[in-house]
């Protein structure tokens, strides 16, 4: 942990949170984006497209040298000069030297994230060359002396009044803050630049090995001018842009605009191969192929999928954290979820260390990624790396390594806590205020008290009367179900018994390990995985049920991944994954028993909140809705039902409580707007967050687990 860096980071967060106008704009944009995107893909199979892009990029990654050589040979045969830049400095030096040697005074640029990555403009300035950004957004931030806050819309954080002020300084007259007028000002001001410039600098969206050409996907038309008018054209592009064939390029072109801006296609797609005619002669074309950490990324088995990225920016658009703090906080040069990963490899782990923690883990980005990158998983593995490099902090280290791995110690400490908390709970189930330096934790959300008697401590006394059980299942309670909400476990027994299912509670089960994993302590997470596999499989249950989707992900996915190379545990981890299923999904899919609850509930207007890991991890979202409506509840959908509630475990408690609070605020507004008197969900973490928020705001809306509502219906 680097204290100075962490402090600077917190200042940036505070600054962003103090700018509600930005948040409002990014929220609106996120909504509009999803609608436009859905419409754009309505005639296309997004899943098939993204698998094709992933396959194509993986093929190139697996045979990097071969495709690189093919691309270079074809480009050179067409008259291009190719330079392979190992580092950002190499690329900058090459371009600056080239400019100097050709007597270039002015270089016009179209948008290139690679040139942002290398800070090319500074290098050109050092060589006495003026770089003029011509992409409208890039020009605005160049005038403002800022960096992009979005990969596709670099000036998304600015408002027309600010733009008018910047443009007025350029023209020397008062420019009105009208968008159409401002665009016209840019057109006029930049036009002469193209004609005067001696060098044009572009990026590239795609490089085609088959032809040795590049493709530029743009809207404004400036890249066409930049690549046409000046005598010299320099294209700076990352080596990961190479694809094998024109068909592969077509797949990317078919997907990128739809996923970036919701356009079927951008105004221009420009295919350039070789030194094309320019004035009386031929153009001088230089292709600068940038590595700058990409080879290292390709060599990292945990992270390499990030090289599939086609830079659409969608992962930021849908990210609740990005919508709350913007790209100047949640990014370095590259922003959003992919930005975290690219920053670590292109700009160094130190530059990524804070934003690695900023991901709340909701997987909204994974759903929309056009390259099928599991961004959350890669971010978790980077957290682990940083945990190794910098440590995870002494407090966490003691909790995870010394306490959690020792189940008996861990659980007796929780029992002790249930006694010690009495002064602050006053015997109530929730904590409304905490004293001293803990006070901020309960300013915007009450916290649940640790239950007087945990689920495990009362299990033996809960009667189960089933003559001939259909199935014997073991409940994996998870910490929240066990120690905060034991009544949920009791309700589960009631519901399962009604369905002729007998439930056991293996007492050796421990925390699922996700809190340790999210904090970068994989070693503890693996140790807990082994304990839990042994505990849950001990009595050979037919199924293992979960009531917490984060635990579900651990049992279904993480344990298998951790132990896949361990001959003692691999097969058992696989078996546990196969029989693990969340409770609502179990009732609908395994038992086909939704009808059992038909009309049993007292009608009430209920809205459903999709928990991130249930919908986007386990793929369960229809099932709880089916159970609720079948039981006779009146289900009304809220807006953004599957947007994160802001909990994220330690995210809301220690790492980013201020961001968590904002995201919770969004969710509460959506719940209220639905008009429901009860919000249902299938995650104790979300219950903690939403109960806490609604209670603090004194809203009369019940927060219930689907299983609790089913148990109510049976009363």
């Amino acid at each position: 942990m680097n204290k100075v860096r962490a402090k600077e980071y917190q200042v940036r967060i505070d600054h962003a949170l103090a700018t509600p106008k930005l948040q409002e704009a990014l929220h609106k944009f996120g909504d509009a984006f999803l609608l436009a995107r859905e419409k754009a893909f309505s005639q296309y199979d997004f899943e098939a497209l993204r698998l094709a892009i992933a396959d194509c990029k993986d093929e190139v990654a697996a045979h990097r040298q071969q495709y690189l050589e093919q691309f270079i040979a074809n480009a050179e045969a067409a008259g291009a000069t190719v330079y392979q830049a190992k580092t950002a400095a190499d690329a900058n030096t090459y371009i600056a030297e080239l400019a100097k040697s050709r007597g270039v005074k002015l270089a016009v640029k179209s948008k290139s994230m690679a040139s942002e990555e290398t800070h090319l403009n500074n290098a050109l300035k050092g060589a006495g060359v003026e770089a003029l950004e011509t992409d409208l957004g890039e020009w605005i931030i160049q005038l403002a002396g800022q960096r992009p806050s979005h990969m596709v819309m670099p000036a998304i954080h600015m408002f027309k009044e600010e733009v008018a002020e910047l443009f007025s300084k350029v023209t020397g007259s008062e420019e009105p803050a009208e968008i159409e007028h401002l665009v016209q000002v840019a057109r006029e001001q930049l036009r002469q630049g193209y004609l005067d410039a001696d060098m044009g600098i572009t990026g590239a969206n795609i490089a085609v090995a088959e032809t040795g050409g590049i493709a530029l996907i743009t809207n404004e038309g400036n890249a066409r001018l930049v690549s046409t008018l000046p005598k010299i054209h320099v294209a700076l592009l990352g080596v990961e842009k190479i694809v094998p064939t024109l068909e592969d390029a077509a797949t990317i072109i078919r997907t990128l605009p739809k996923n970036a801006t919701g356009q079927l296609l951008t105004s221009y797609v420009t295919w350039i191969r070789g030194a094309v005619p320019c004035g009386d002669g031929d153009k001088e074309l230089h292709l600068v192929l940038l590595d700058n950490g990409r080879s290292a990324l390709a060599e990292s088995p945990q992270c390499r999928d990030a090289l599939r990225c086609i830079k659409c920016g969608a992962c930021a658009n849908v990210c609740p954290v990005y919508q709350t703090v913007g790209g100047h906080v949640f990014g370095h040069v590259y922003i959003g979820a992919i930005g975290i990963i690219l920053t670590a490899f292109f700009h160094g782990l130190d530059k990524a260390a804070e934003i690695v923690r900023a991901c709340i883990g909701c997987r909204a980005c994974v759903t929309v990624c056009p390259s099928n990158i599991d961004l959350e998983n890669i971010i978790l593995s980077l957290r682990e790396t940083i945990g190794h490099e910098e440590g995870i902090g002494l407090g966490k280290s003691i909790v995870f390594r010394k306490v959690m791995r020792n189940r008996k110690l861990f659980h007796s400490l929780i029992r002790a806590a249930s006694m010690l908390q009495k002064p602050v709970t006053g015997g109530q189930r929730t904590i409304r205020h905490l004293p001293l330096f803990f006070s901020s934790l309960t300013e915007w959300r009450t916290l649940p008290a640790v239950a007087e008697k945990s689920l495990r401590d009362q299990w033996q006394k809960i009667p189960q009367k089933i003559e001939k059980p259909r199935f014997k299942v073991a409940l994996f309670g998870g910490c929240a179900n066990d120690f905060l909400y034991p009544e949920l476990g009791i309700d589960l027994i009631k519901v399962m018994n009604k369905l002729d299912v007998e439930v056991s509670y293996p007492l050796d089960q421990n925390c699922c390990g996700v809190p340790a994993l999210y904090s970068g302590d994989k070693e503890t997470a693996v140790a807990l995985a082994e304990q839990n596999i042994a505990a849950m499989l001990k009595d050979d249950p037919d199924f293992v049920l979960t009531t917490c989707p984060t635990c579900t992900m651990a049992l279904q996915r993480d344990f298998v991944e951790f132990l896949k190379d361990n001959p003692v545990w691999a097969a058992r981890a696989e078996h546990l994954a196969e029989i693990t299923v969340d409770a609502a999904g179990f009732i609908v899919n395994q038992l086909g028993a939704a009808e059992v609850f038909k009309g049993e509930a007292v009608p009430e207007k209920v809205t459903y909140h999709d928990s991130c890991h249930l919908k986007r991890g386990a793929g369960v979202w229809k099932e709880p809705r089916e159970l609720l409506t079948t039981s006779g509840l009146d289900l009304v959908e809220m807006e953004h039902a599957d947007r994160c509630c802001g909990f994220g475990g330690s995210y809301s408690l220690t790492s980013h409580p201020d961001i968590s609070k904002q995201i919770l605020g969004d969710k509460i507004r959506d719940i209220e707007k639905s008009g429901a008197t009860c919000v249902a969900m299938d995650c104790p973490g979300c219950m903690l967050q939403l109960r806490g928020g609604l209670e603090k705001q004194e809203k009369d809306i019940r927060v219930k687990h689907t299983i609790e509502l089913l148990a109510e219906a049976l009363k």
Partner: protein
Amino acid sequence: MQEERLVAVFSESARAVGSEVSIVADVEAVVDYVKQLTTCLVMVPDFASAKRLDLVSALKASGVALVQEDLRQGAATAAVGVTGANFAFAATGTVVLESTREDIRLATTLPEHHVVLLDPAKILEDDLAAVPHLRSFHQNSPRNYLAYITGPSRTADIERVLTIGVHGPKQLHILLFTGLSNDPLEM
């Protein structure tokens, strides 16, 4: 039937992104269209179907001032650029221009209006159907500058508000002209 369907889809998609789509019967109609757009300078680069139509003579004869000598300066002051299209695809309303010759690029980037003559027989289904032709261009010539053009120049860089005509043409006019050319490799 197939052509009719493609023309309908193409026209709808092109209009949806702000292109003007019209049907013209002969070279006189093209001249009239251009004259309606401007009384200023017009640039007509050299392309096969214009030659066959003798478009330049027809424009001159009706008094249209054409860019002749210094093409770069001329294009920068011209109000209209007129080109053909090699082919088009319907799904997105896109015209494809083999723009390796610099005059084609100048005429389609600098003037405020870009008029495209397109034979409806050359409208393909979509971007994937275009790939074999792309490959032919690459095989037939050692250097290429190929352009997919879908509507006028646009931006949403200020407050995400769609605004037309930031750097390239502010209007794209597509004139459907039957019998112009049925060769996708020719403009």
